């Protein structure tokens, strides 16, 4: 229970279904530093606790700050230092919510963990679990859960995944939950809006000025501040070329302090290579029998799905070839893969090399 409306309603639905005695609320203390909602996010924890009180269930706060720092924050900072842009929400789901919290829940005697994510879990007749997009296309969060596998899905529940956000808020209002009108959270939870990504990273790693290089001609176009903060595909601050068209980042080389920029076409690519590959259902991947398969790729939380072909290469990585050229995927970003036969069903994920 983050103290937001989705997990509040998720808890309420669970209590309705299972009864008070079989549900406890848990809030994770993840970040020890300052955040937009105050130190230790006390206000959010209070909202979560008061909702739990109202539902008549016990509420615990678990302190996972050490793991969060080791698994999410430090890799985020270290990634930027070498020109990668990891998605901290995905790493938090991978290592904290669907691993550390699962272990804690199991040791306390619980069978499953429910979250307020907008996604659905379905189970086939032969007991295989599927991860399906949330019913509200604008709020779908299957992308940030795409790294879940059978073992985790077996113990996961997403009670609000079948509802639209409007329905979630209606339900919260109907139940009189204090979080009914609370705004959705935005951005990265450990970065304050007043400091931004640059301020946060600037406090934690040395930022270096670099040079802008024309992707086509190799010409030095001038200085660029803080190459660590520049992302592949970025348009902002890159200006226009002599042809009057916008320029995009095509490559960031942090060690060489070089940022290459080019035309929109130059910033596109036909494919991407993925490491840290996961499958929702290992046994059901078409790749287990065929050398390649078709899929649908989604390259950001609310990115447009695009048809692709997926092939396992010699290094064990996945080569994804898009049906048409796409804006380059920044190294470190997650690509979620969906099933062409059932475009709402996640089949797996990987991280762009």
């Amino acid at each position, binding site marked *: 229970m983050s103290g937001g409306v989705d997990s509040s309603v998720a808890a309420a639905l669970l209590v309705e279904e299972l009864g008070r005695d079989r549900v406890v609320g848990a*809030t994770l203390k993840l970040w020890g530093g300052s955040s937009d909602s105050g130190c230790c996010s*006390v206000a959010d924890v209070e909202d979560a606790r008061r909702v739990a009180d109202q539902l008549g269930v016990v509420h*615990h*706060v*678990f302190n996972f700050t*050490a793991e969060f720092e080791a698994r999410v924050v430090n890799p985020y900072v270290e990634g930027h230092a070498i020109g990668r842009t990891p998605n901290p929400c995905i790493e938090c789901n991978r290592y904290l919510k669907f691993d550390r919290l699962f272990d*804690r829940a199991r*040791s*306390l005697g619980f069978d499953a963990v429910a979250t307020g994510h907008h996604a659905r879990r379905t189970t086939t007749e032969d007991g295989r679990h599927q991860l399906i997009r949330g019913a509200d296309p604008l709020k779908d969060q299957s992308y940030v859960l795409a790294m879940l596998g059978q073992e985790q899905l077996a113990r996961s529940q997403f009670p609000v995944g079948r509802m639209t956000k409007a329905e979630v808020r209606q339900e919260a209002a109907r139940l009189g939950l204090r979080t009914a009108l609370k705004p959705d959270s935005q951005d990265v939870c450990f970065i304050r809006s007043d400091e931004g990504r640059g301020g946060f990273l600037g406090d934690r790693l040395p930022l270096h000025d670099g040079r802008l290089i024309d992707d086509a001609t190799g010409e030095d176009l001038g200085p660029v501040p803080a190459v660590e903060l520049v992302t592949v595909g970025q348009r902002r601050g890159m200006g226009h070329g002599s042809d009057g068209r916008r320029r995009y980042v095509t490559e960031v080389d942090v060690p060489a302090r070089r940022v290459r920029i080019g035309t929109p076409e130059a910033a596109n690519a036909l494919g991407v290579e993925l490491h840290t590959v996961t499958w929702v259902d290992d046994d059901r991947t078409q790749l287990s029998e065929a050398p390649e398969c078709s899929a649908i790729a989604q390259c950001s939380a609310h990115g447009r799905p695009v048809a692709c072909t997926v092939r396992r290469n010699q290094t064990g990585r996945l080569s994804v070839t898009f049906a048409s050229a796409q804006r380059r995927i920044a190294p470190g970003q997650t690509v979620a893969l969906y099933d062409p036969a059932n475009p709402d069903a996640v089949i797996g994920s990987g991280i762009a090399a």
Partner: protein
Amino acid sequence: MRAYLDHAATTPMRPEAVEAMLPFLRGEGISGNASGSHRESRRARLAVDDAREQIAGLLGADLGEVVFTGSGTEADNLAITGALRAVPVSAGGRAGPIVCTAMEHHAVLNTCRAAAGPGSHGLREVGADRSGMVDLDGMAEACTPDVRLVSVMAVNNEIGTVQPLHDVSRLVRTLSPDAVLHTDAVQAAPWLEMPPITAVVDLLSVSAHKFGGPQGVGALVVRNGVPIEAVIHGGGQERERRSGTHNVAGIVAMAAALSATVAERTDTVTRVTGLRDRLVDRLLASVAGTAETGDRSAKVPGHAHLRFDGVESEAMVVLLDDAGVAASAGAACSSGAVEPSHVLLAMGFGKEAAGSGIRFSLGTTSTDADVDHALDVVPAVVARLRN
């Protein structure tokens, strides 16, 4: 069956204390503001003065040395912030450093850290050894002649070890003659004879709810001649040292609780020591991979602190609670999350050990049945968490 083994966090109120405060809550002719001048006020003031005299006597202080506060934490804040404010920064400009132990309660630690901010007093945090005692060599090193304030707790709140305050006092008086010596005696008052402690310090904090009084009342003993500035300003109550309308019912109940605590102390100490020793000895014998934190012979009777290898105390307190045992996993932050014990870290334990400690704390209402219940429950909980 529930066994409440968290008396170091707060104690159930003693019946004497409840009885003492009820007439004031009901307003039976004595509901006045102790600062007024009519009959109702005079009665309230009389009650406060009687309570002050009684508490002063039990603590080994003079009547005028007792300042009532809203909590033990407030008493610590008044002691540290108030004493530092009362001594002007020397003409040279630089304020002298503060010394405290690294295992102080956060009421002291965070107040010292706040006072030691940039351009102000520096703070020297002195560590502890594995037995749970302040490092006296480190203390001697920290106590330079320019030190303004030293704060050393009388009894550690997590481990229960009684600190060598007499040695600390001698050391401070010799090496830092200008320093004010404060002790947080919140965990000492339920168990130890207080006058000998009061005798060797300048400032001493106590809290009513640790010895059967109500929550929301504390006191700071300010020895005569020790300058202190108010931290809370207003109507000038408590001889201008702490403003705010007196909590008459709470103050009266605090006196009743302390009085009963002192009267029964010998019996309580014997009985609770027996209960605590049985609990700890049996757990050490029956649960493999269990270690006791600190030197038991140096602890107050109510405290037991155990570390269970491979167990996360944050999960353990939840399962203990489910099984009917109320215990503590160390300090909680404002969000309610359990922090790794800074006390164990100060004693030189690693993070894992500091996150595997459980405090069972007993008090006057603890019984054999409580201990039996804990002995029934703890081994199974540990086994389950290790599984």
